[in-house]
C-alpha cells in the first residue's frame, strides 16, 4: 500500500477517513499534534470527573426530602438597597466567557507569529481568570460567614454546602492552575522561546506555537465546565 502521509490532500474525509485513521499504523489522529491529542484525552477524563460530581449533586438533590435552598436567593448580591439575584455569578460568567474570547484570539495571534499580541492576550486572559478566582473567594467567604458548612446550612437540605464547596472548589482549582499555566506560557511567548523553538525548562520540549493552542483547549474547557455548573447548580 502506498505510504499515507500524515498531512495533505490524501487524507480522506468523513467516515471512510475515520475508519482508515483508526486502522492505520503508529498514529490514529492524523494532522493533530500528539500534545493536542493528549490534552483532548486528559480533558475527556476530566469531563468524567466533573460529570460524576454533577450527577452526585443531582442525586442528593433528588433524594433529600428537605427543600433545596433557592440559589437565586442564596447568591443574591445586596446592591442599592435591594437584592439582585445571582448578580455576582452572572458577572463571573461574563468574565470567564471574555477570558475564553481573549484566549481564542491569543491562539490565533500565536499562529500568525505576533509575539507581543499573543503574550498580551495571554496576560489579559490570566488577569480575567484571576479576577474570577477572586470573586469565587469572595463568594465562599460570604457564604461561610452566613453559616454554610459542608454538613449544614441555614436554609434547607444539608447537602447543599457539600455539593457547593466540592463542585465550585474543584472548578476554582482548575481555574487557578490555568492562570499559573497562562502566566508561564505568556512569559515563554514574550521572551521569544516559542518563536526560537527553545527547549522548555522542565520537559525540554521545543517551543512551538501549538503549545498556545493546547493550553487554550484547557482554558476553554474550564469555561465549558462553568457553563454546566452555572446551568445545573445556580439556575436549576
Amino acid at each position: 500500500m502506498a505510504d499515507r502521509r500524515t498531512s495533505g490532500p490524501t487524507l480522506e474525509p468523513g467516515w471512510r477517513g475515520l475508519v482508515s485513521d483508526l486502522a492505520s499504523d503508529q498514529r490514529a489522529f492524523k494532522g493533530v499534534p500528539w500534545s493536542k491529542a493528549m490534552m483532548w484525552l486528559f480533558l475527556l477524563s476530566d469531563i468524567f470527573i466533573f460529570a460524576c460530581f454533577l450527577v452526585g449533586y443531582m442525586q442528593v438533590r433528588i433524594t433529600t426530602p428537605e427543600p433545596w435552598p433557592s440559589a437565586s436567593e442564596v447568591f443574591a448580591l445586596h446592591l442599592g438597597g435591594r437584592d439582585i439575584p445571582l448578580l455576582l455569578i452572572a458577572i463571573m460568567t461574563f468574565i470567564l466567557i471574555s477570558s475564553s474570547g481573549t484566549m481564542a484570539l491569543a491562539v490565533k495571534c500565536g499562529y500568525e507569529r505576533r509575539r507581543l499580541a499573543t503574550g498580551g492576550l495571554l496576560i489579559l486572559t490570566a488577569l480575567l481568570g484571576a479576577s474570577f478566582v477572586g470573586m469565587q473567594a469572595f463568594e465562599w467567604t460570604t457564604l461561610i460567614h452566613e453559616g454554610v458548612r459542608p454538613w449544614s446550612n441555614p436554609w434547607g437540605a444539608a447537602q447543599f454546602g457539600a455539593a457547593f464547596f466540592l463542585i465550585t472548589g474543584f472548578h476554582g482549582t482548575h481555574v487557578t492552575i490555568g492562570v499559573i499555566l497562562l502566566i508561564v506560557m505568556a512569559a515563554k511567548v514574550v521572551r521569544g522561546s516559542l518563536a526560537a523553538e527553545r527547549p522548555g525548562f522542565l520537559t525540554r520540549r521545543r517551543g512551538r506555537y501549538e503549545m498556545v493552542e493546547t493550553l487554550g483547549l484547557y482554558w476553554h474547557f474550564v469555561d465549558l465546565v462553568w457553563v454546566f455548573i452555572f446551568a445545573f447548580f445556580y439556575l436549576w
Partner: protein
Amino acid sequence: MARGEGQRHPIGIYLWVWFLLFVLSVGSYLVDILQFEGYLRWSLITVFMLLKAGLIIAVFMHMAWERLAIICVVLVPPGVLVFLMLLMALEGHHVLASRLTWLAQ
C-alpha cells in the same frame, strides 16, 4: 495540516462566537430574573447551556475543523454520561419515595 501551520480562521468568527456567548448568557440569566418556573425554565436553561457548550467546543476549541477520528473519540464517550444521569435520576426518585414512605413516620 502540516506541522506548525495550525488552525487558522478569520477573526470575525471568534468575535461572533464571543458575542453569541454573551447573548446566550444574558438569556440564561434572564430565565432566573424573570422567574420562569417548571418545564419552561428547565428547557430554556438546557437549550442555552447546550448552545453555549456547542459553540465553545466547535469554534473556540476548533472541534469543527478536526478530523472525524478525534471528534468521535472526544464526543462519543461522554454520551454514556447521559445514560448514567438517567439511571441515577430513576434511582434517586425511588430512594426519595422510600424515604417518604418509611422515614416520615
